[in-house]
């Protein structure tokens, strides 16, 4: 499983980082989220799904 950030939609709410800091980081200057890992480790799948659902901008998507 992969997660993709649409950086046009991302506005730096940082919900993804709050929910799954292992996977997401934020750029301080442009406040866009970035995915740190190429693929989502199985143990993070649940948290990742929550992060995707909670994004207020719908900027995250899962690719299986």
């Amino acid at each position, binding site marked *: 499983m992969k997660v993709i950030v649409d950086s046009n939609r991302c*506005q730096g709410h940082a919900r993804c980082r709050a929910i799954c800091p292992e996977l997401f980081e934020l750029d301080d200057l442009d406040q866009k989220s970035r995915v740190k890992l190429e693929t989502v480790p199985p143990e993070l799948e649940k948290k990742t799904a929550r992060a995707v659902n909670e994004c207020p901008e719908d900027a995250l998507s899962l690719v299986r």
Partner: protein
Amino acid sequence: MGKTQPPTNPVPLRPRFNHEIDPALMREYPALWDTFRADGRAFRSDAARWNVWYLMGFDDVREAFQRSDLFSSRTVIAFAEEKEQMPWIPLTLDPPEHQKYRRLLNPWFSETTAKEIAPRVRERCIELIESFRATGRCDLVTDFARLYPTTIFMKIMGLPVEESGTFLGWIDEMMHTTDDSGVSRTVRSSAQQRIMEYLGELINARRKDPRDDLVTYLTRASIDDRPLTDMELMAISFLLYMAGLDTVAGMLTYIFRHLADNPDHRKHLREHPESIPDAVEEFLRYYAIVTTSRVVTHDLEFGGCPMRAGDRVVLPTAAANRDPNQIAEADHFKIDRSQNRHLSFGAGPHRCLGSHLARVELAVAIEEWHRRIPDYRIEPGANVTQHVAGVAGLDTLPLIWENSRG
């Protein structure tokens, strides 16, 4: 535009409705939005020379926030003439201009920065609670909710903390004198004038004597390879000043009223402090305080409304957050809600700059308060009223508690 289905019914009209002063909304905020939403996804008010369209659903409100090409923030007060809107940078700028200023400010309000200053936030929070704990009572509004975010924000800006009382008085006059009488207009503009004069002096002082604060940073910052003008500096400082002083305070009043009325929720947060961040999201969702507005840039149909250029759309974040199509049991407060999504900090390019700091401030307040004052209630007989305007909050919240730990 925005999942529009052809309108089956004409958009309801609420004659002369103005959310800033509507008595029913002031009594029943935010639940009254649910009643309105049941009549349609939007409604229209004729209280201005232009149409004012109120959007009630999550998707429509969010799309209006995101589509700054269709909905400009050059004026954010729905019932004010465009020429009355003073520049609040970056809020009243649209992309791409907006982004230049926003990028200057982002590092000061990033999630990382918010975490870095959390210890100072905590220190200030404890200091305030300890200042009244032994008395067994406080007015949450004047003794805590307003002073706490204000002094933290003033430290970031470089404003003298001991003058916070004066600033809060000006803010009150500016933001809570909402009626349209000539007297109120004069009060508002003279308060605004005094704030501007004060900020002007501050900017000059930091130019001569730089310090490690946000105002100093801004005096040295540049846009398009030129320094910021005095007008820009004032417009930025003014917006940050207003946005930072009144919003967290409003949220705290709803949080503490809720917890005073719900002992089981207090217990839950005391016993599970690790669940406070999730609870904060639910407080933010359920008691959203901001109702802002945008200008329609050209004729279009949106949310089932036939909009014309120059009309305004009102974006009540509390209405969006309670949309049953968006979230299960949206009109229920669930302290342990684990799938949450809300627009309390807006969406799109103007997403609340202070959101990360606000979240830290709210979580710290809940944690430290309940360590020190685990049980409390609203003073019997208290008449707790609220204002809605652009930023909602309770006007007063007298709390009492047993003073057993002295």
